């Protein structure tokens, strides 16, 4: 999906802070405001930390990996028993290592998958590429501007920097 009806202002970091307040005051929901920068803006109050499900999904991934490890080790030991001289065929001390490693592998893979699916891949084409951002500027704006607010948003943004329109 290409960016539609998007209005952005290219401005400095302090201006980005001000324009954020102006947009919110104009009735734009925080969730619709997009701030794009070349590094995390920890020193500027344009970030709004949201709760993320990533840690819980990673725990689920780890549990899945651990279960797969348990099944792989125990079921195959039982299915293809080797001569152990009367000792147990399924050995939990050693299977624990396989289970542990696959638990960790599950956690690692789920972290990557959750990150990619929630942060980059889904927004591949919906956000603009602005080379000026890599030069230190901040792109702030509204991804989908309601028609009734279009003029007002453009006016607000133009007070803080060069307005860019993406269709």
């Amino acid at each position, binding site marked *: 999906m290409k960016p539609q009806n998007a209005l952005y202002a290219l401005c400095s970091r302090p201006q980005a802070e001000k324009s954020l307040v102006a947009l919110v005051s104009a009735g734009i929901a925080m969730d619709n405001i997009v701030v794009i920068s070349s*590094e995390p803006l920890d020193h500027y109050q344009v970030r709004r930390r949201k709760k993320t499900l990533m840690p819980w999904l990673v725990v689920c991934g780890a549990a899945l990996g651990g279960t797969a490890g348990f099944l792989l080790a125990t079921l195959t030991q039982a299915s293809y028993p080797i001569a152990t001289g009367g000792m147990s065929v399924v050995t939990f001390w050693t299977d624990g290592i396989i289970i542990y490693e696959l638990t960790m592998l599950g956690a690692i*893979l789920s*972290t990557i998958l959750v990150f990619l699916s929630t942060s980059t891949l889904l927004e591949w084409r919906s956000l603009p*590429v602005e080379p000026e951002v890599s030069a230190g500027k901040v792109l702030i704006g509204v991804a989908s501007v309601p028609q009734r607010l279009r003029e007002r948003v453009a006016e607000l943004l133009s007070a803080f920097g060069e307005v860019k329109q993406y269709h």
Partner: protein
Amino acid sequence: MAKTAEEIQRDLLRPVLKTSWRFVLVVAGLGICVLAGFSAWMYQATNGIGVAGINRPVFWGFYITNFVFWIGISHAGTLISAILRLSNATWRRPITRCAEVITVFALMIGAMFPIVHLGRPWLAFWLVPYPSERGLWPNYRSPLLWDFFAINTYLIGSVSFLFLPIIPDCALLRDRSSGWRRRLYSGLCLGWRGTQKQWQQLETAMHIMAIVIIPVAVSVHSIVSWDFAMTPVPMWHSTIFAPYFVAGAIFSGIAALIVAMVLLRSFLHLEEYLTAQCFDNLGKLLLVMSLLWFYFVFAERLTTWYGNAKPEMAVLWLTQRGPFRQLFWVMLCCNFVIPFPLLAIKKLRTIPGTFIASVTIIAGMWIERYLIIVPSLSHKFLPYTWGSYRPTWVEITITSVTFCAMALLFIVFSKIVPVVSVWELKAGLPPGSRPAGASDRDGQLEPVQILGAPS
């Protein structure tokens, strides 16, 4: 650091965007060396494992020494980087990527050695657990199979841990390049734009990865140590081996990191980023690990000597008075006697001082791995099986070339991605260090006012 964000970006992207004749020369030289090593391996594959010096009873020689050594070196990166990230140490910013790269490449080189050691490398897939018509199923009791799982998990984890913070830098390079480079970085950055949501997700993902990768790193070298400790061979069958190996791995890993940083600092002119403070801090870490290593060596040998079991003592005296004594004392000098004063005395803990200490430690740790493997195998419990080991030119060539391969991989990587994370350094700058026009904080609104605004 007095540099502005723009200057940081320019300095760190310069080695990636500009290629000098020196780079081409170094890559060509290292490439020839790697080719020589590959030829030696192919010679062995064609003529059989008999061209190597390994034979009954010493079946594990240089190749497994290299395996243990390189897996140990790989502990530098991810472990150090993860610990420093979690503790939010600000001095980590210039060194984390360098450390993470070492991990990935050292792990790749280390993981190659069991295959080189096979003699018939085309049968390496037999190690993979899958049901086959041969009726063979890998034995889950075997530490060699644990290696398969541990090393692959660590490799996937390390590559991911390295790749995640590279994504924003690739987006920077996408905007600064053209042609095939732009296409390459557009692909590598996976559609990264730099929204605040993306930054938050990236930081969360890296935080989780840092937590996960530490126990994985510890488990990997513990499992490598169990390749030995699970075997009833004199001086191997010991409960101390897992922590001893992990400590040794971190020790050699930090040394490798310092060596890589000094070389990068010099060749890529990163003096203002890889500062004396980074080396001083790493030097202190190295000192602690040197003391810990000495403690483990002493504890291991004291226990063996006190037990006075004949087979164990035969191996112990082999390394103290026998044919391996020179190597033992060289190892002790390299790992403790030389580095200790260089790292303990503040005046000597300079960049050259930590570099010298690190080079000796790398040499010392390779010898240590050799001394763990060869003397024990040459003098097992039954004296009629005793034998000796002498490496051939094939093993020596392949071993030497691994260092060239590491250097080559590192240099090529530094040509594709900045070896110092640009965005992390920029994020660490105070607001006053912004370029003109962007550093103005006048009129900044109170955070409460913004966060409390109606949505």
